[in-house]
């Protein structure tokens, strides 16, 4: 067999497709609207997995409604938007204060115990757990029941009330409801109160609605069912008939006769909407009711009673908010009393107060929310004055409980927060109780202020706050407040204040270690600064920034570091040595943190990626030696990151190329780059990656004229592939990877000049050995491997190589060995062997289709590599026969291959070649 001589240049020219200049870049966005329309249509059909939950949204409320229906909600209530609001609020309350399994009940609420003659569950042990206060132990009549039991009994009450009502025994229904309302008098188990409230008000709402419906019925229909009139949505008492009024009055008489204050108020609130049948201005009652609630001395029951009032009052359709303001002022006074009680200053009482505040907070929030929501915008200022906010003169400031102030700040419209910021600060200053930490109010203020961007100057406010908080001298609080105000500062470009804040932190943090909590706030502050500054130079230029960062430790520090690196890799190439050193330090500390903590994959991935990105973005420009030194330093510091080492090899290789480009003098530098790569590659864990990097480095070495290095590297690449194959069975992806690396290596070897040593063509031989050794793998890969060897050999035998590396002064094999008979003999013998193996491998392929295609591929390869001789055509026709058997005679590929074979068998003239 003999290689076919080829003229690569002419072949390329004759087969190249005609080229024409294009008007548009194929990847730029199309300007015409048509393709967009098409895209829109496609979106319709396209199933986006992320949209999954979205499509469910329609279904969700339906489910909810269904649930409500089954739980016995009232039809009238469902149409009301307020009902939904209240419903979700109730659910929130229940969730916020989950209750323990057992509830101890004092004698007041034994209504629930007596109502059913179920065996009372009371065990001393559970009672002991439940009693938060040992004194109560002495009290009589304390029994415990389980939560489920309690809830069950209340629902039972509800059912009984419904039953009584529907059997026209309305007095019993009322009596039972009063019993339920009485349960609310028991505040002894505080944690349970919100749940109790929700359950009990549910019952009362039900009764209230039933009474309303009944009276409405009376007003609209006569006794015998004929229609009198129909009341409009916003009717008033003038059009209501006497009979309905009489019934309505009776209800209020009945409710008014309840002896205890709390159930009396609750019941009147339940039927509060019915005042609309009697009074033209029903909202006037609210003022009396607010005052009546003052009689409840327990802050907890008073707060929840207020809450219920605000809820029921919304049914009066009045926009009057004055009563709510009275509500808040009353609650304020009550809470102030409760907070200032100095009877016992023990720890338990502090805890109790905290629990109390915790329990009351949602009620305040709800009321304040509705004050600000319902008050018309133009009256808001007056409302605020009534609440003690922003009156004229200093003496107008009513002192206020912190928690109330907190809710004010939370619920005020954002623009009001801005315009009243000074008054709010005064208010916060006046709060001196333990209900809420002052710094939390400042913190909230900071957040609220940054919500809107208005031209108003906030410098004074920020100045003032920094001063005040700094005076407290508590780092933790300072950090919390500043964290909130930083948004505002950054929004308004108050750079001076950034410095002030940092200085404050540095000053307060001197000589002490940060606590966990402080670290959290500090992390937030530093991250905000990172994301604010476009330029890391500016960030690092801030006084104390790095100092503070250095004082941090643990996870928060890592998070800040991650953010800094993230910012760093967005910016582009890094050239400033100083910054690079800083970032290197940051990366290093990040790395240390990773090393210390157990490496969980997810936590580890991001920092590793960021560090590698950063390293590859460092660019010392022409100072390549320094760059290489940096790379060496990186390898030392981040040796454990695989990804990074890959990046390092890439970097050093590109450095070598850069060195080559700049001048040829730096031969030793290129040597050291290659050496660096050579040393680094073995430490990478994946052999696949190793071999690819070896090939890359070999290429670079070849370009640098280091032939022996290139050869050695190529050899290493082969041995890597070898080890990959030997160490267990590689997966499909790996097999593909091996194949492509192998092909790449072959194409590289075309340029590597052969050694004049004992084995002339070492490379093809070793490749052959490798291919042979792995032929037990899938035959398909094997055939391609052998094809590659044949093609390589054919290329090496040519008079002119298809491409060469001689622009760096390396001679090609064509120049060295063309015409050397022993050289070409060797190549032919290798190819012959390869061709044999090729045919064998094809016959082993089990799948007929794959076998056919492989046969055709091999046939093409052999036909284009060898000159047509009886021996070659024999092989070719044999292969073609296999293909025809497997694919059928009509296959296109077979046809074109047949044609190709025909042109090959013609005398090899240039004209004939062109006909293909």
């Amino acid at each position: 067999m003999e290689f076919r001589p080829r003229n690569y240049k002419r072949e390329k020219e004759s087969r190249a497709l005609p080229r024409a200049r294009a008007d548009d870049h194929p990847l730029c966005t199309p300007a015409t609207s048509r393709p967009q329309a098409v895209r829109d249509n496609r979106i319709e059909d396209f199933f986006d997995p992320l949209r999954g939950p979205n499509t469910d949204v329609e279904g969700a409320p339906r489910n909810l409604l269904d649930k409500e229906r089954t739980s016995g909600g009232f039809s009238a209530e469902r149409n009301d938007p307020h009902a939904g609001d209240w419903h979700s609020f109730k659910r929130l309350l229940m969730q916020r204060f989950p209750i323990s399994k057992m509830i101890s009940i004092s004698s007041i609420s034994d209504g629930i115990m007596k109502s059913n003659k179920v065996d009372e569950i009371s065990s001393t042990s559970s009672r002991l757990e439940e009693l938060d206060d040992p004194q109560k132990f002495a009290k009589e009549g304390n029994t415990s029941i389980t939560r489920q039991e309690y809830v069950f009994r209340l629902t039972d009450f509800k059912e009984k009330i419904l039953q009584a009502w529907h059997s026209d025994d309305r007095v019993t229904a009322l009596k039972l409801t009063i019993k339920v309302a009485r349960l609310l008098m028991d505040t002894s188990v505080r944690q349970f109160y919100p749940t109790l409230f929700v359950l009990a008000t549910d019952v009362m709402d039900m009764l209230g609605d039933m009474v309303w419906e009944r009276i409405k019925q009376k007003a609209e229909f006569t006794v015998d069912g004929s229609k009198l009139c129909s009341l409009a949505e916003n009717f008033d008492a003038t059009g209501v008939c006497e009979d309905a009024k009489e019934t309505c009055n009776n209800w209020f008489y009945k409710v008014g006769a309840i002896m205890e204050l709390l159930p009396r108020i609750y019941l009147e609130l339940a039927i509060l909407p019915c005042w609309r049948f009697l009074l033209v201005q029903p909202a006037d009652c609210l003022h009396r009711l607010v005052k009546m609630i003052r009689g409840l001395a327990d802050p907890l029951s008073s707060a929840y009673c207020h809450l219920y009032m605000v809820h029921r009052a919304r049914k009066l359709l009045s926009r009057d908010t004055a009563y709510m303001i009275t509500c808040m002022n009353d609650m304020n006074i009550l809470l102030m009393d409760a907070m200032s009680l100095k009877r016992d200053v023990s720890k338990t009482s502090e805890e109790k107060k905290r629990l109390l505040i915790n329990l009351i907070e949602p009620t305040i929030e709800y009321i304040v929310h509705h004050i600000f929501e319902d008050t018309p915008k133009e009256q808001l200022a007056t409302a605020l004055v009534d609440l003690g906010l922003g009156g004229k003169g200093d003496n107008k400031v009513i002192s206020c409980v912190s928690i109330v102030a907190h809710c004010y700040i939370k619920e005020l419209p954002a623009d009001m927060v801005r315009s009243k910021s000074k008054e709010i600060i005064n208010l916060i200053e006046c709060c001196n109780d333990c209900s809420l930490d002052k710094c939390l109010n400042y913190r909230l203020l900071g957040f609220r202020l940054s919500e809107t961007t208005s031209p108003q100057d906030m410098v004074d406010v920020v100045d003032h706050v920094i001063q005040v908080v700094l005076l407290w001298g508590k780092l933790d609080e300072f950090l919390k407040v500043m964290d909130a105000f930083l948004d505002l500062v950054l929004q308004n470009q108050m750079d001076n204040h950034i410095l002030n804040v940092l200085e404050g932190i540095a000053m307060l943090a001197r000589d002490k270690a940060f606590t966990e909590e402080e670290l959290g706030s500090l992390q937030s502050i530093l991250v905000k600064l990172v994301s604010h500054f476009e330029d890391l130079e500016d960030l690092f230029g801030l006084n104390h920034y790095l100092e503070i960062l250095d004082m941090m430790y643990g996870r928060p520090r890592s998070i800040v570091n991650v953010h800094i690196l993230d910012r760093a890799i967005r910016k582009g190439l890094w050239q400033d040595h100083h910054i690079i050193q800083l970032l290197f330090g940051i990366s290093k500390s990040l790395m240390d943190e990773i090393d210390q903590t157990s490496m969980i994959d997810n936590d580890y991935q991001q920092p590793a990626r960021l560090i590698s990105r950063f390293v590859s973005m460092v660019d010392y420009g022409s100072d390549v030696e320094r760059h290489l030194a940096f790379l060496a330093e990186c390898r030392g510091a981040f040796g454990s990151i695989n990804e990074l080492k890959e990046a390092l090899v890439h970097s050093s290789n590109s450095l070598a190329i850069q060195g080559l480009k700049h001048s040829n003098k730096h031969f030793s530098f290129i040597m050291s780059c290659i050496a660096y790569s050579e040393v680094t590659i073995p430490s990478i864990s994946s052999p696949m990656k190793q071999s690819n990097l070896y090939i890359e480095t070999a290429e670079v070495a070849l370009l640098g004229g280091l032939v022996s290095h290139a050869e050695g590297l190529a050899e290493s690449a082969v041995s890597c592939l070898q080890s990959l194959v030997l160490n267990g069975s590689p997966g499909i992806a790996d097999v593909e990877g091996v194949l492509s690396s192998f092909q790449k290596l072959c194409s590289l070897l075309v340029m590597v000049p052969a050694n004049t040593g004992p084995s002339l063509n070492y490379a093809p031989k070793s490749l052959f050995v490798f291919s042979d050794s792995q032929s037990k793998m899938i035959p398909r890969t094997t055939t391609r491997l052998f094809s590659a060897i044949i093609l390589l050999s054919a290329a090496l035998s040519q008079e002119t190589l298809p491409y060469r590396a001689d622009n760096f002064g390396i001679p090609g094999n064509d120049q060295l060995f063309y015409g050397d008979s022993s050289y070409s003999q060797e190549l032919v013998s290798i190819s012959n062997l390869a061709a044999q193996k090729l045919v064998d491998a094809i016959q082993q392929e089990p799948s007929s289709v794959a076998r056919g295609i492989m046969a055709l591929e091999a046939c093409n390869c052999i036909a284009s590599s060898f000159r047509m001789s009886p021996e070659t055509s024999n092989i070719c026709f044999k292969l073609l026969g296999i293909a025809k058997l497997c694919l059928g005679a009509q296959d296109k590929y077979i046809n074109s291959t047949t044609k190709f074979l025909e042109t090959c068998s013609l005398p090899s003239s240039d004209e004939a070649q062109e006909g293909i």
Partner: protein
Amino acid sequence: MSSAALEIKLSRPSRIYRPSEPLEGKIVVKSASSISHRGVRLAVNGSVITQVRGGAAGLVESIVGAVKPVVIVNRIIEVQPPGRIASGTTEIPFSVTLKQSGGDKRERFYETFHGANINIQYLLTADVTRGYLHKSLCATMEFILEADKAELLDQPASPEIVIFYITQDTQRHPLLPELKSGGFRVTGKMSIQCALSDPISGELIVETSAVPIRSVDIHILRIESFVFGDRIVTDTSLVQTTQIADGDVSRHMILPIYVIPPRLLTCPTTSAGSFSIEFKVAIVISFQSELSKMQAKSDPRTPRLWMAMETLPLELVRTR
């Protein structure tokens, strides 16, 4: 034997009528078969019944305590002459006016009242008398009488308001030593002439109190007096208790007094020759005390060591 039922239905569900208004309604007879009768009659009966209950008088008197009732009105009208009532449901309408024009000017229709010792009650009795062999059908129903609008006062022009204050020194009964020494002061004002249809209203302020307050309650008391033999029996009883403060309320807060007078249990303050009905209101402050827990269920009117109280006269009037 066929069963038959008799029922009185009044035109007003509230059953409240005034003397000069026609008292209208119908007698409903439900019977499976037709009934022959000797006339359908309706009796209107109003009377003041006084009786002595235990406590107010001696044991002997309580045994023979029933005093002959004072009749206010007693009239019998024949609604239907003797005849037959068909089977099924038959409704026989009626209309009676209590106050007859040209009647006795001195005739007084007291308002309905149900007290402990005095009851002023108006009853309607329908009666279908049948032959000797049959039991006559009978039904009774109470209706409520309120004074004629024409006789009523207008809303009191300036309701009489009384200012009160309660301190440790205004109490005539012994107090707990800590109350005596610590001191307290509760002030307020209250209207003591009050229309029955309106709430009794006022204000109360706890100014100071060294001992925490447990509860503030408003009691409405009624004083019923009547001539019994040769002396006058007077009995005070509790009508209604309304709590206005639960627990140790904040100082200097205005707490509203808002008490709705209970229907039936109250009536206009009345003074007739043989009896009188008067009312009082008591403001009772109970303080927190270990002692009070021992005797939680005692009569709230009894003065106790841990209580302070103030009693004011209350004139209830019927207004237009």
